C-alpha cells in the first residue's frame, strides 16, 4: 500500500534532461524564457542550467556502480556528464542546437517509455510543465532548480539538495514518494505584471524519510491518506439533488476517486447525486447548470501561497460564487498544506472586490476525519 520503487532494482535507471536555456530570461529581466531564448541570448544572458546540473551530478558521483543514466545529446544532458564515468546512454537527439520546449516534452516521453526509475530535469516551471506533458504524473521525478520561475513543488531547494535526495533514492534509502504540484504562470501576463498561476498537473517525487522524527506522539498520516479521509468526510455529508462543483487539485480529486468518477485534476468537474455531470467545465457551463438549482463548491487552496479562489480555478468565478452563496462553499485542505502557510491567511482574488469582501473573515476548513480548522481568509 505504501508506494514502492520498482521491484527494488539494484541498478537504478536515471533519466537526465537539461533545459539548457532555462533561467536565461531572469538575469536580463525577461521574467521567464518561454519563447524568448534568442532574445535572452542577444541581451547577453549566459546559460547556467548546465552548471547547475553539474552540481547535481557531482553529488551522485561515486554511485557509478548503482546507476545507469539515459540522457539527451549535447547541452540537453551529454555535456554535463563529461569527465564522469557513468554508464550513460543517449536516447534523444534534439533536432537543432537551439532546443525548444517540444524537445523537453519529447525527451520526457522517451524516458517514460524507457521505464526510468527517476527522471531528473533541470529548468524552471516551464520545464516542469513540459516534463509533465511528456512523462505524466506517474513518473518519479526530481527538479533541479535553474529557471526564473520556481513555483512548482517538484523542485528541490537547491541543485545540491536535489543531488542528496537522488543519492538516497539510488541507494534505496528512501522508498516513499508523494505527488507534487506542477505550477506555471502565464508568462505573457506575468511580463505585464499580472500573476496568473495555473496548476498543470502533478509529478511524483521521492520523499526523504525524515530521520529523527521525534516520535513522542503520533505523526500525521500520509498526505494521500489525509486526502482520502477528507474526501470521505465531504462525501458523508453530501446532500441529494444538489450540484457539487469540484475545484482543481489532488485534495479534491480524492472525492472523485472514492466516488469512482472520472476527473480533471486541473479543471473543474460537476457532480450531482454522486454522479458525474461533466468534466472540465468553463465558467459559463457551470453557471448554466447552477442557475436554477442549489449547488455547493468544494475547493482547496493552492499550496504555498494559499489562494482559495482566483488562482488556477478561475472557472469558479465571482459570478459562480455569488450564485452559489458563501455558505455553500466547502473548503478542504490537508494539515500539512495549512502548516506550509506559516500562519499567513488564505487569499482571494476573484476579480470582484465585493465577492472578496463577502468571503473574507474566518472559515472552517475540513482537514480530516471529524476534524476542522478555523482559519483566516483575507481578500
Amino acid at each position, binding site marked *: 500500500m505504501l508506494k514502492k520503487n520498482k521491484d527494488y532494482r539494484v541498478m537504478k535507471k536515471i533519466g537526465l534532461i537539461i533545459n539548457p536555456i532555462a533561467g536565461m530570461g531572469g538575469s536580463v529581466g525577461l521574467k521567464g524564457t518561454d519563447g524568448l531564448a534568442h532574445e535572452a541570448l542577444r541581451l547577453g544572458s549566459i546559460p547556467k542550467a548546465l552548471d547547475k546540473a553539474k552540481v547535481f551530478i557531482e553529488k551522485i558521483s561515486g554511485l557509478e556502480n548503482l546507476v545507469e543514466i539515459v540522457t539527451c545529446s549535447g547541452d540537453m544532458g551529454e555535456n554535463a556528464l563529461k569527465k564522469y564515468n557513468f554508464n550513460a546512454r543517449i536516447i534523444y537527439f534534439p533536432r537543432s542546437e537551439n532546443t525548444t520546449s517540444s524537445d523537453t516534452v519529447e525527451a520526457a516521453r522517451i524516458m517514460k517509455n524507457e521505464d526510468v526509475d527517476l527522471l531528473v530535469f533541470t529548468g524552471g516551471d516551464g520545464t516542469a510543465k513540459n516534463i509533465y506533458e511528456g512523462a505524466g504524473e506517474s513518473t518519479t521525478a526530481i527538479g533541479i532548480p535553474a529557471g526564473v520561475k520556481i513555483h512548482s513543488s517538484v523542485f528541490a531547494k*537547491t541543485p545540491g539538495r536535489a543531488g542528496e535526495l537522488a543519492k538516497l533514492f539510488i541507494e534505496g534509502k528512501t522508498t516513499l514518494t508523494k505527488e507534487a504540484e506542477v505550477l506555471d504562470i502565464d508568462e505573457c501576463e506575468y511580463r505585464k505584471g499580472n500573476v496568473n498561476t495555473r496548476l498543470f498537473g502533478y509529478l511524483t517525487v521521492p520523499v526523504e524519510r525524515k530521520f529523527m522524527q521525534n516520535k513522542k506522539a503520533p505523526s500525521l498520516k500520509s498526505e494521500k491518506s489525509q486526502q482520502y479521509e477528507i474526501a470521505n468526510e465531504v462525501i458523508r455529508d453530501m446532500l441529494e439533488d444538489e450540484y457539487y462543483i469540484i475545484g482543481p487539485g489532488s485534495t479534491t480529486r480524492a472525492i472523485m476517486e472514492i466516488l469512482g468518477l472520472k476527473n480533471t485534476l486541473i479543471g473543474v468537474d460537476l457532480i450531482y447525486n454522486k454522479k458525474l455531470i461533466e468534466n472540465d467545465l468553463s465558467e459559463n457551463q457551470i453557471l448554466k447548470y447552477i442557475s436554477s438549482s442549489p449547488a455547493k463548491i468544494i475547493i482547496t487552496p493552492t499550496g504555498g501561497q494559499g489562494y482559495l479562489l482566483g488562482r488556477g480555478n478561475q472557472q469558479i468565478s465571482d459570478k459562480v460564487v455569488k450564485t452559489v452563496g458563501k455558505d455553500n462553499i466547502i473548503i478542504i485542505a490537508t494539515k500539512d498544506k495549512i502548516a506550509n502557510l506559516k500562519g499567513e491567511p488564505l487569499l482571494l482574488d476573484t476579480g470582484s472586490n465585493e465577492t472578496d469582501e463577502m468571503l473574507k*473573515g*474566518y472559515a472552517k476548513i475540513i482537514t480530516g476525519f*471529524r476534524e476542522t480548522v*478555523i482559519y483566516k481568509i483575507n481578500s
Partner: protein
Amino acid sequence: MKKIDRSCKVRKNFHQAKWDEAIIFELSQKGERGILVPKAETKISEKVGDGISKLPKNMKRKTVLNLPEMSQNRVLRHYTRLSQETLGADVNVEIGQGTCTVKYSPKINDQLSRIPKMAELHPLQDESTVQGILQIMYETDLYLREVSGMDRITFQPGGGSQGVFTMASLVYAYYKEKGEENQRNEIITTIYSHPSDAAAPHVKGYKIVYIHPDENGYPDFEAFKAAVSDKTAAFFVANPEDTGVYNKNILKFTKLVHEHGGLCGYDQANANGLLGVTRAKEAGFDMCFFNLHKTFSTPHGCGGPAVGATGVLKHIEKYLPAPLVDYDGEKYYLNYEITNNPYSVGKIRSFNGVAQVVLKAYAWIRSLGPEGLYQVAKTAVLNNNYLFKKLMELPYVDAPYIKGKQRVEQVRYTLEKLYNETGVSTADVQRRMMDFGMHYWQSHHPYYIPEPMTLEPTETPSKADLDEYIETLKFIFNEAYTNPEIVKTAPHQSVCHYIDESGMDDPEKWAVTWRSYQKKFK
C-alpha cells in the same frame, strides 16, 4: 606531562557507552538456565500428578518455546549494557525535552516506592491493610486540589493522554445526563496544544475544531469566537502552549465557552512553570490533569508507568471513575458512593491507578512544600528565559511570536535561517548534539514552526549546565557553517551511526520482532 586545559565548555571528547551488544536471541546457549523455579513439593505431585496432563489436548502447548537460554550473569550483563547505552536524565543534562518536563527524580522517592510495604500490596486487599497507601493517595489528592483549585482528583489515568481521554469521557458523561451528547459533539483545541488533546477526544467520538494562533502566538480569539457554538462540548487547551506562550486572555476564552454552555478542560502538561503561581480554577476551567511523571518528577521510565491525575470541580465529580479515596476521620477508605450513578464513566484503568507513582509525587511535594513548589515554577521560568535570551542573541536562532517578551516554561525555536544558509537541518543539529552527550526534541507534527527545536530546561539544571548547553549549540551552529558534513553525518560519538530507516515503512522489510527479522532477512 602537561597541564590539562578544561576551559572549553563543550565536551569535545565525549563518547557514549557503546557495547556493540548482540540481540538477546544470539546469546542463547543450549541448556543454560537463568533462574530455577520453585517446584511443587513431592507430596503435592503425589496427590495431583504432573498438573498439565489434565489440560485438554488442544489447549496444551505442543512446541518448545523459542526463548533464549542464558545463565543469570549473562542476562544481567546484557541488560546492564543496554542500560548504559541509554542516555536517561540521571546521566545527561535534560534541557532539550521540550513539552516533556524531564527534571530531577529524587532517588529517595524511588527507593521508597520499592519497599515491600508498597511493592507487595495487592490492589484488592482489605482496606484495613492498606491504610498507609490510602493515606498517601488521599493526601496527594488534597495537595493537588490545592495546586489546581479543583475539588477532587482521580489517579486512575495512566498517563497524560489517558488524562485527556478521561476529561473527554467526563464531558461525554456530563452531556449524556443532560441528553445533549449528540448535539454537543465538538471539542475545540489549539494547534500548539498536545496532539492528544485532539486524538483522545476523537476516540470518544468527538469532532475536533482547531484554532490557530494570531500573529502574537496567542490563540486567535476572533477565530475562537467563530468556533464556539451550541455544538461545543468542551475546549481543551494547554496554557502555556508548546511555544511557551501563555495565553493572557485565557479568562475570555473560558468565559465564552461557558456562555455557550460548554465545559473547559485544562491540559496541564506544561504546569511546571505555574506551580503556586496560578491555577486551573482561577483561569476558569472545570477540569484539568497533571502528568505526575512530568511536573511531579516521578520519573518517565522510558515511557511509563505514569499517572495523569485528573481534577474536577464539584459539578463534574459524580462522573469520575470509581473508586475515590476518602477519609472518615478514623480510617481511609475507597469511596464508590460519589460516583455510583448511571452516568459515571465507571472505570478508566484497572484497580486504583499507579499507586507507586502517586507515592513518588507525594514524596516530591513533601520535600518541597508550598514554598518549594513556587520556587520550582519561578526557577524553571527563570532558567527558560535565561536560555531564551542567550539563544536569541545568536543570529541563526529565532522564535516566532511575542518578540521581546517572556516565555513560561519552554520555547519552540526555529533554525530555519541556519537551514537556509547551510543546508544543516534541525534534525542534523539534534543528532550532532548527541556527540556531546546532549539532545533535544523538535516538535510535534506537522511543523507549524519550520526547523523546530523545543527546549524546556525545568528547574533542574544549574546555570553552568545551561551555559554548557548553549556553548554546545553554538559550537554546532558554527560547524554548520564551517564543516556542515560533520553535522549532517552525525552522530559520530553516540551508540550507533546513521540508521537506514528505509525499511521502516516497507511491509516487506520492517521487522518488529526477531522472528520477523529472521524470516525476512534469511
